[in-house]
C-alpha cells in the first residue's frame, strides 16, 4: 500500500466535469492534466461513451454537499503527476484481457466485468507497482483494506455453475445459502438491479476464463 487516493466529491455543487471522467476513461484529462482516475480504477478505458454520459447525468442528480474534496494521501513517487502518467501508460487502458468472445453474451459479459463492473480491481492480484497481473486475471488477491483475501473467481477455484453465479448476483445467496458479506454486499445490491440477461452474461464470462 502506497497511500490512499481519495475519491472526488461529485455532488451537484461539485459536478463531475466530463473531462474528469475522461481521466478514468483514457488516462488523462482533456486539458492535459494528470490525476487519479475519477472512479479510482484503470478499468474504465473501455466504457461505452453513452454509459459514461449516463453516469455523469446520474451523478448530477445526487444531493448537494459543499464539503470540498480532500487531497490524496499517497507516497512518493505516486504523489508526482508525471509518475502517475507513467503508471497509467504501463497499466491503465491496456485493452481487453479476454480477447476471444465468440458470442454476444460473452461480449456483454466482458464489458460488464472488465469495464463497467471493474471486478478485476479487487479480484486480480497486483504487482509491486500496483498494476494488475493480467496473467493471473480474477484469481484472487490480498485485501487492500484489511485482513483476508479477495476470493478467486476463476471457474477452477470457484466451482459454481452459471446459475449459481447469476443467483448470487441477484439475491446474495451462495449455493450453500450463506449470504454475501463485507463490500460485496454493495456490489450485489447494485448488480441485482440489472436484468437477468446481464447477470447471465457475467456468469458466462467468468465460466469462460482460461
Amino acid at each position, binding site marked *: 500500500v502506497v497511500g490512499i487516493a481519495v475519491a472526488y466529491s461529485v455532488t451537484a455543487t461539485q459536478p463531475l466535469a466530463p473531462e474528469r471522467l475522461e481521466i478514468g476513461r483514457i488516462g488523462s484529462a482533456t486539458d492535459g492534466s494528470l490525476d487519479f482516475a475519477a472512479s479510482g480504477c484503470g478499468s474504465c478505458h473501455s466504457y461505452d461513451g453513452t454509459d459514461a454520459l449516463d453516469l455523469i447525468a446520474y451523478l448530477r442528480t445526487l444531493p448537494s454537499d459543499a464539503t470540498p474534496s480532500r487531497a490524496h494521501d499517497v507516497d512518493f513517487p505516486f504523489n508526482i503527476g508525471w509518475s502517475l502518467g507513467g503508471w497509467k501508460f504501463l497499466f491503465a487502458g491496456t485493452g481487453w484481457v479476454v480477447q476471444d468472445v465468440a458470442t454476444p453474451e460473452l461480449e456483454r459479459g466482458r464489458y460488464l466485468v472488465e469495464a463497467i463492473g471493474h471486478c478485476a480491481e479487487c479480484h486480480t492480484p497486483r504487482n509491486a507497482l500496483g498494476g494488475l497481473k493480467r496473467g493471473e486475471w480474477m484469481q484472487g488477491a490480498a485485501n487492500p483494506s484489511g*485482513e*483476508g483475501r479477495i476470493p478467486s473467481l476463476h471457474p477452477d477455484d470457484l466451482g459454481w455453475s452459471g446459475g449459481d453465479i447469476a443467483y448470487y448476483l441477484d439475491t446474495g445467496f451462495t449455493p450453500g445459502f450463506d449470504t454475501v458479506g463485507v463490500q460485496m454486499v454493495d456490489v450485489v445490491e447494485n448488480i441485482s438491479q440489472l436484468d437477468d440477461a446481464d447477470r447471465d452474461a457475467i456468469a458466462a464470462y467468468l465460466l469462460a476464463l482460461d
Partner: protein
Amino acid sequence: MKSVTLLAGGTALAFGTMAFSDGHADVNPAVKARQSHMQLYAHNIAILGGMAQESVEYDVALAQIAADNLVALASINETAYWSEGTGNNMIEGVKALPAIWENMDDFMVKKDGMRVASAAMAEVVGTDLASVQGAIRDLGGACSASHREYRQRDN
C-alpha cells in the same frame, strides 16, 4: 429435482451459554451455540431458496414449516451467546468481528431485521412460488445487513 430433508421443531435448541474464552471456536460454548443457530438458519433458508430457484419443487407445507422455523429461530434471544471475548480477535476460527461488541445496539437492530424478514416470509409463503421468490430477497438482505459490517471476510 433435489430432495431435501427438514429439521422440524426449530425451537428445540439447547444452547450452552457460559461466557468464557478458551481460544478455540470448536469448543467455546457461546461460539458453538451461535454457529449452530446460523446452521439452522441456513438449513431452513436452503429449503426455501431451493424452491425459489426452482431446483426443488414448490411444496406449500414444507415451505411453511421452513418459514415458521425461521420465525422461531429469529425470536430467540441471542444476548447470552454474543458474550464479550468471543470475537475473531480472541478466538481462532471465529468470524465475528470486534465491531459487534463496539456497536452491540446496532448489531441487534440488524439481527432484528431477520425477525421481520422471516415473519414476512411466513405470511406469504403459502400464497404461491412468486411470493417465495420475492420474500427470499428480503431474507438475504437481512442476513447481509449483519454480514456487511460484522463478519470477517472469507479467505
